[in-house]
């Protein structure tokens, strides 16, 4: 490796074939564990991976992006990485159907990571659907730094909540909200946030889930001292910054709005900088 040739972009990204060590159904989702060896050392909470799906003769030519749920190291398996996949589209269905022992083509780790505070803070982790996946790994890191970690999970219905038993140990509190009341409290995951901010019981919000949820949290934290780090999700073709499809309008320090790639300038972004009202539009004054 020639260090000086490398640019900062994708600086930890490695293209490997990884073996599936475990693949089990958890409610509506699949929890899939891969052996990735020493690469666990460069994976951070918030990073994602891009997986080739469908096999060599597939008509699906694009990789699928998955947030890293957590990484760990053990004597028996070495470095392992866990992903949570929802078998919705044909690509994720293919991945969920892969048995233990099969090899998968992966590029990892990709994208930005959640910023970890240097001093203990009150952290609120908010997940929508299986957007909760990367939050449990993050919770462990934050707890390790002495943070108070509260978690709110929400979904349209109870079956779409992803909250593994072992994950619950890494948070101080966990509250669940469903829109149909089939699990936890009836309502939206964003409902309690306003009061928590007013009570000054939260310093940093980490969020991952649908864009509507991320936008709602950004509106609640606007004009407050609460920092909002959100992991965005926008359709991407490459995951490595070359296709320019996954862009979001983001205001820079100079006040200028740029269309930033959610794969290399994200997925973790400062929620207060994302111009949510312009998503799906082109800022005025330019083509």
């Amino acid at each position, binding site marked *: 490796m*020639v260090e000086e*040739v*490398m*640019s*900062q*972009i*994708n*600086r930890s*990204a490695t*293209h490997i074939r990884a073996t599936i060590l475990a693949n089990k159904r958890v409610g509506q989702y699949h929890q899939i564990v891969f052996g990735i060896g020493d690469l666990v050392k460069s994976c951070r909470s918030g990073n994602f991976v891009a997986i*080739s799906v469908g096999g060599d003769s597939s*008509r*699906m*030519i*694009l*990789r699928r992006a998955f947030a890293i749920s957590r990484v760990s190291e053990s004597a028996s398996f070495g470095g392992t990485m866990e992903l949570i996949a929802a078998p919705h589209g044909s690509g994720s269905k293919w991945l969920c159907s892969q048995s233990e022992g099969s090899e998968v*083509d992966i*590029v990892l780790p990709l994208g930005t990571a959640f910023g970890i505070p240097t001093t203990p803070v009150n952290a609120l982790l908010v997940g929508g659907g299986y957007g909760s996946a990367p939050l449990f790994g993050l919770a462990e890191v934050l707890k390790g730094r002495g943070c108070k970690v509260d978690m709110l999970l929400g979904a349209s219905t109870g079956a779409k909540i992803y909250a593994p038993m072992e994950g619950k140990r890494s948070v101080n509190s966990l509250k669940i909200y469903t829109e149909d009341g089939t699990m936890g409290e009836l309502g939206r995951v964003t409902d309690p946030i306003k009061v928590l901010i007013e009570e000054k019981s939260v310093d940093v919000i980490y969020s991952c889930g649908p864009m509507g949820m991320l936008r709602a949290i950004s509106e609640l934290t606007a004009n407050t001292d609460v920092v909002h780090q959100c992991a965005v999700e*926008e*359709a*991407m*073709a*490459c995951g*490595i*910054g*070359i*296709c*320019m*499809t*996954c*862009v*979001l309008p983001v205001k820079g320090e100079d006040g200028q709005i740029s*269309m930033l790639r959610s794969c*290399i300038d994200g997925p973790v972004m400062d929620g207060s900088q994302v111009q949510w009202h312009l*998503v*799906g*539009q*082109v*800022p005025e004054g*330019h*083509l």
Partner: protein
Amino acid sequence: MSDFDFSTTLGNAYFNTPIFTASGCASSGKELAQFFPLKDIGAVVTKSIMNKPRYGRPTPRMAETPSGMLNSIGLQGPGIEAFLANDIPWLVEQNSRIIISIAGETIEEYATLARKVRSVSGISAIEVNISCPNVENRGLVFACDPEASRRVIDGVRRTIGGELPIIAKLSPDVTNLPEIAKGVVESGADALALINTVLGMVINLDTMRPHLGGKTGGLSGPAIKPVAVRAIYQVHAVLPQIPILGMGGVVSGRDALELILAGASGVSVGTASFGNPHAAIDIQNELRELLITKGFPSLKAAVGYAHREAQL
């Protein structure tokens, strides 16, 4: 194997190897440099740059299709000044060969861009993209109009002088591609890039409206490879002396060889890099092996080989 001559030329520009990135599929190179040294492939063709910064089209910008994808980026970019100041010096440092791709909304904009590129050192050639399908006004796709195509290339040639090779990037979405190709060559193009994406559309069954923010998009990937082979074959048949940089759905060395046999002197890898960041270097290695296995003494010996007379 060491005797095998893998080099190619486009106009007076020499390249050690014949595999390039495709414009718009490698940004300006930094993103791919983590995966292989950029100097190991023929050249990096940078994303088509316009004179002013540009936001491009609204999202969604992408839809996967069977063996392909639609994109609707709309030439997002930082503008030529920032591009030349920030991206080109880095590429030069990598010892990468560089082809700058330019796109304009008017004939004057192309000439302006050519003037700014002319003074840059370390550039092997200029690609004049007159065929981006993702512009607001379909009438602005110069490559669909023989006269407009000629005038753009003529303007760039007059501005840039005789040194830097001009590669005109054409669209397959035309009635008579050989005529348009002849026109731009007469106006001063040294080489042709074939093909740009094919205009397409996907309807979203949830919203029951066009899926892409820009409604239409450019189809790329293996789905369009036969269109590329046809276009290259047709143009090479009427302009056998004009080098063609072929592209369209190449994902393997075999695909690259097909384009070369049809008449391409070099092959660009685009959409394949989205699925495999090592695609360009992998394809280049496969192609070298394949040419040697088939008994070709050089890459050049294979260019247009599919056109030879039938042997009885």
